[in-house]
C-alpha cells in the first residue's frame, strides 16, 4: 500500500501519481499522511481506489472524484467533493462551506456537521450529513439527494429544482419555492438505502421530513411583470 507523506512529498506529486493510475492497477489502497490543511488533496481521481487521508484537509479535497473511495480522517475545508462524478467521499469530522457543490454523482458522507451552502447547485450527488448543515444549503439544487440527520440553517433549498431534501431535525427557514412534501413509500426506500450506504445506524427514514420544489419559479408568471 503506497503511503504518501505530504510533509516530504509535494501535493502535485501525490495527485500526479493518483492520476497516472490505470484501470486494473494493483495499487488500490493509498494512505496520505500529514495533509495539514493542504488544498486539492486527491482531486481528480478517476479510478476505483481507496484513499485514506490521515488528518484535516483544506479546499476542494476529492474534487471531481470519479470512482475513488476517499476517507478523510479529520475535517475538510471548503468545497469537499466539489463536482464529484461518482465514487464515495467520507469525512469523519466536519466539512466547511459548499460541500458537494455542483456534484453530479457519487456519495458524500459527512459524519460531523457541514457548514453553509452544503450541496449548492447539486446535480445528482447524494449527500448524507450526520450532524447539522448551515444556511443556504441546496441552493438551486437540481437533482440528487441531501439527507441531514440534524438541523438545517436558514433558507434551505432556495430556488430548488428537482433535488430531494430530507431533514430529521429542525429547519430554521425554507428558501424561495422550497416546501415541505409528503413522504411516499419510494422516498422511504430511497432514504433507507442512503442511510445504510452512509453507515447510519438506529435512525428510521420515518423520522425525516421531505422538502422539495413547489415548482412555482419554473415559468415566468405574468403577474410578476411589474417587479422587473
Amino acid at each position, binding site marked *: 500500500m503506497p503511503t504518501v507523506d505530504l510533509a516530504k512529498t509535494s501535493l502535485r506529486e501525490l495527485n500526479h501519481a493518483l492520476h497516472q493510475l490505470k484501470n486494473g492497477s494493483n495499487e488500490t489502497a493509498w494512505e496520505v499522511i500529514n495533509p*495539514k*490543511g*493542504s488544498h486539492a488533496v486527491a482531486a481528480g481521481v478517476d479510478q476505483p481506489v481507496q484513499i485514506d487521508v490521515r488528518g*484535516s*484537509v*483544506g*479546499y476542494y479535497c476529492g474534487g471531481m472524484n470519479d470512482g475513488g473511495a476517499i476517507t478523510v480522517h479529520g*475535517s475538510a*475545508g*471548503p468545497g469537499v467533493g466539489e463536482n464529484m462524478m461518482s465514487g464515495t467521499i467520507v469525512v469523519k*469530522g*466536519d466539512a*466547511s*462551506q459548499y460541500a458537494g457543490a455542483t456534484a453530479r454523482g457519487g456519495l458524500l458522507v459527512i459524519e460531523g456537521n457541514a*457548514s*453553509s451552502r452544503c450541496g449548492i447547485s447539486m446535480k445528482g450527488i447524494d449527500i448524507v450529513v450526520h450532524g447539522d448543515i*448551515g*444556511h443556504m444549503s441546496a441552493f438551486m439544487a437540481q437533482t440528487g439527494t441531501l439527507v441531514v440527520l440534524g438541523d438545517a440553517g436558514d433558507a434551505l433549498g432556495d430556488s430548488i429544482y428537482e433535488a430531494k431534501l430530507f431533514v430529521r431535525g429542525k429547519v430554521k427557514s425554507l428558501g424561495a419555492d422550497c416546501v415541505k412534501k409528503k413522504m411516499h413509500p419510494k422516498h422511504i426506500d430511497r432514504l433507507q438505502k442512503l442511510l445504510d450506504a452512509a453507515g447510519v445506524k438506529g435512525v428510521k427514514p420515518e423520522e425525516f421530513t421531505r422538502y422539495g420544489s413547489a415548482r412555482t419559479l419554473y415559468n415566468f408568471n405574468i403577474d410578476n411583470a411589474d417587479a422587473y
Partner: protein
Amino acid sequence: MCGIVGLFLKDKSLEPKLGELLSEMLVSLSDRGPDSAGIAIYGSGGGKKSKITIQSADPKGDFAGLDKEVEKAIGAKVDVIVKSTHAVIEVPTDKVEAARDAILAARPSVRIMGVGEVIEIFKEVGLPADVVKRFDLTKMSGTHGIGHTRMATESAVTTMGAHPFSTGPDQCLVHNGSLSNHNNVRRELKHDGMTFETENDTEVAAAFISNKMAHGDNLGQALEKTLTDLDGFFTFVVGTKNGFGVVRDPIACKPAVMAETDQYVAFGSEYRALANLPGIEDARVWEPEPAKVYFWEH
C-alpha cells in the same frame, strides 16, 4: 482573498513564543495574499509606559536623533527602538499625546502605525516571510497578536493600506472581505471626530469599533454593532489591550477556522494556519458561526 490569523494565549509559558507561532501561522497563508503583510503584537509593559509605533520611508534620516528631540519637547525620558522602516518609541503614558504631537512636529513625514500601552504594529508591502524577517517578528513575545496577508481589492498596495489598522489606543483590526458602505460610515465617523489616514474600507471598520468603544461599549457590544451598521463581506479579527474578538458577516463567504485548547485560542482563515500549533490534535476546532460575536479577555 487575504489571509488572517490571530492567537490569544491563555498559558503564560507560551508568551515568549508568540511571535514565532504567529509568524508561522501568517507565512502558511502567503498564497492568500502576496501584496503586503502585517502583525500586531500585544507585548510586555503597560501601565506607566506606553508605545508609539511609527513608520518612515526614510528611516535613517527620520529616526536619527528623534529620541533627543522628543525628550526635549515632552520633558521626559524616551526610548526609541528601530526595526527597519518602523520604530517603537516608549514614552511615559501620561505624555503619550504630547509625544505624538512632538514626533509629528519633528518629523512630519512619519506615519503613526499604532499607539497604546502594549501594542506594537509592523506592516509593509511584500510577502509575509519577508515582512516577518524584516522586523524580526519571530523573536517577539506577548500575550496575544493578530496578523494579515493582503490581496488588495479596495485600495492601493501601500504600507498604510496594509493591515492591521489601529484607530484607538491598543486597538487594532484585520479584515478579510470588502465593505460596500464604507464611504458613508467614514463620513459619519468624521462627524464624530474620528480621523482617517487612508481611503481603505478596513480602516473604517477599525474606526467604527474604536468609536463605539470610546462611547462606552465593550468589545463584544462594538462587534455586535458591525453586524447592523456595516454592509459587505467581512471576517474581522480584533485585538484590544486585554481582549481578542472575531465576527463574520451573516453571509459568511470569507473562510474562518478557530481552535481552542487550555493554552490558547487561535484563529486562521484556513486550517493550514493552525496545523502546526502545539496540541492542535486535541484542540476543539470549529468554524465560527455567521453573525455571531466571539470574544475573549484576559
